[in-house]
C-alpha cells in the first residue's frame, strides 16, 4: 500500500520545490488548458520539451514519472480498442478479414495518449514538488477572491489539509488492523463470500472507531488552542511571490499563447 506514486510529495531541494505554490498551481492550470488546444505535433513537441525541462529542473526521476503513468496504461489500451472499433475515417492501415483499422483511429488514440502523458507529467510536477500543506495554503489564497460570493475559502483549505494530513495515518492504521486480524486467522485475500464479508467487517469496524476517535481528539485539540473557523487568523508561513514566480507564470502564459497561435493562426 506504500506504492502510491500519483500525487505523492517527494522531499527534495530543487528550484521548482522552492517556487510559490500559488504560482505553481496557476502555471499548472494554464499549462493544462494549453494542452487542449489542437496545436498539432509541433505544439505537443514544444509542450513536451518545456515540461521535460521542468522535470529535469525539479530533480524528479523519470522512473517516478513512469510509475505515475502506469495506472493510465490500462485506460489507454481501452481507448485504443474503442477507437479502432468506432473510427472509420482516414486511410486503411491494415485489413483483418473485412475489418479495417483506419489511420485516424490510431492518430486519435495517439493524441489522447500524448495529452494524458503531458497532463500526468504536469500534475506530477506540481504534487511531487509541493508540500501538501503549502498546496492548501496556495488553494486558500487562490480561492480568496470568491469569499465575496460566499465561498468559505479558509474552511475549504482547512478541510483539505486535514484530509491530506490523515491519509498516511489512515493507511498505516488500515495496515495495522489488517495485520492484527490476519494474526487472528483472517484471510484478507481469498475465501468464501461469507468469510470475505467477515474479513472486511473486521477491518472496517475498527477503522471507523479509530477514525472517529481521531476526529474527536483533533477537534478537541484545535478547540483547546482557540481555533474558531471564520475568525481572522495570522499565518505561521506567509507566502510571498518573488521574481521567479512571476517568471513561471509569464512563461506559462507565453506557452498558452503559443499553442493558441499554432492551433488557429499558423
Amino acid at each position, binding site marked *: 500500500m*506504500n506504492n502510491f506514486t500519483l500525487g505523492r510529495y517527494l522531499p527534495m531541494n530543487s528550484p521548482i520545490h522552492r517556487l510559490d505554490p500559488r504560482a505553481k498551481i496557476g502555471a499548472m492550470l494554464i499549462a493544462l488548458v494549453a494542452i487542449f488546444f489542437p496545436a498539432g505535433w509541433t505544439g505537443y513537441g514544444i509542450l513536451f520539451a518545456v515540461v521535460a525541462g521542468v522535470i529535469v529542473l525539479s530533480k524528479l526521476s523519470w522512473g517516478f514519472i513512469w510509475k505515475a503513468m502506469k495506472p493510465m496504461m490500462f485506460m489507454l489500451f481501452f481507448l485504443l480498442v474503442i477507437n479502432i472499433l468506432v473510427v472509420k475515417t482516414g486511410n486503411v492501415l491494415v485489413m483483418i478479414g473485412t475489418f479495417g483499422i483506419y489511420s485516424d483511429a490510431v492518430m486519435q488514440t495517439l493524441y489522447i495518449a500524448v495529452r494524458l502523458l503531458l497532463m500526468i507529467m504536469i500534475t506530477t510536477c506540481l504534487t511531487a514538488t509541493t508540500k501538501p500543506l503549502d498546496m492548501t495554503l496556495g488553494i486558500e489564497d487562490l480561492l480568496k477572491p470568491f469569499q465575496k460570493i460566499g465561498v468559505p475559502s479558509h474552511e475549504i483549505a482547512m478541510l483539505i489539509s486535514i484530509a491530506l494530513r490523515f491519509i498516511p495515518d489512515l493507511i498505516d*492504521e488500515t495496515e495495522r488492523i489488517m495485520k492484527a486480524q490476519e494474526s487472528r*486467522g*483472517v484471510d484478507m485475500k481469498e475465501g468464501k463470500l461469507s468469510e470475505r464479508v467477515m474479513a472486511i467487517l*473486521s477491518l472496517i469496524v475498527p477503522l471507523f472507531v479509530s477514525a472517529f476517535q481521531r476526529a474527536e481528539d483533533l477537534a478537541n485539540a484545535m478547540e483547546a488552542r482557540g481555533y474558531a473557523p471564520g475568525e481572522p487568523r495570522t499565518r505561521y508561513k506567509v507566502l510571498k511571490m518573488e521574481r521567479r514566480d512571476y517568471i513561471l507564470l509569464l512563461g506559462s502564459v507565453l506557452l498558452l499563447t503559443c499553442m493558441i497561435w499554432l492551433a488557429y493562426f499558423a
Partner: protein
Amino acid sequence: MPITFEHVSHTYSEGTPFQYAALKDVNLDIREGKITAIIGQTGSGKSTLVQHLNALLLPNEGQIHILDRVITAGEKPKKLKSLRGDVGLVFQFPEYQLFEETVLKDVAFGPKNFGVSEEEAVEKAKKALKLVDLPEDCYEKSPLELSGGQKRRTAIAGILAMDPKVLVLDEPTAGLDPAGTKAMMSLFYELNAKYGKTVLMVTHDMENVFTYCDDVVVVEDGSIKVHTDAQEFFRDSALCRSMNILPPALIRMRDMLNEKGFAIPADVQDLDALAAYIAKQVKSHE
C-alpha cells in the same frame, strides 16, 4: 523446536526513495519454553522482527525456522494459516482490533477462523476470558463499552483463545496502570510456567524484564546487539547504561550503595538477598 533467524534482512519500500532497511543480517536463536524480552529504542526494528514470527512480514534475505516450518526469502510460505494459529501475535494497543457485537463473539472470532466449530469456539473463548480474568458480566457487553484495561484483556484473550504454542506480544503493558501491568505480566508468566508456552515480548519496562523474563535480546539499528540470560544482562549495569537502558530499581539501588562504600556482589539480584547483604555489612561495620 526452537525459533531461529539466519541472516535475515528486511527492507521496507525497496527500490523507492522511501527505502528503509529495518533488519540487517539478523541471526537469532530463541529458546523454547522460555520468556524472552526484546528491547531496544523506538525505530530499532523490534516490531519488524516480531512480525516475521508469524509471516506477516517476509524476509528479503535469509531464512527463519519457526516450530516445524521454514520461511525462506523469495519463496511463498506454505501452511501460513496454521502457522498463524501456532504463533499468536498480539499487536501494540490490540484493543483497536475489536469489532464484534459482544466480547464473547469477538474472542471466539479467532478460533472460528481456524475451523473450530461454533460451540467449541465459544468454549475456548470463555476459557481464555477466564485466563485474562475478565468479569463474567462483561461477556455479553459490546467491546466498546469496556474500560481501557478490560479492552486490552479482551483483545489478548482473542489471541489466547486460538491456543497458540508461541505467544508474541508487542508492548503488551503500554498505557496500563501499575496494577494492570502486574496482572498482565503475571498472566504471561503463568502461561509460560503452567502451560509451557514460549513467550516473546517487546517491552520498554526493565522492571518487567528483570522480574519475569529468562532471556534478553537487545535490538539496535536493525541488528542484534546483545542476546543473553536476563540475570546475566543486569549483572553489568554499565553495559545497560552504555546502551541507554536504565537498569531496574533494585540494580540501581545496589550500584548506588556500592558507590557509597558498600561491597555488594553483582549476583545479588533479588530484594531479600539485597536486604540481607545490607544488614550484614551494616552490622559488620558497627
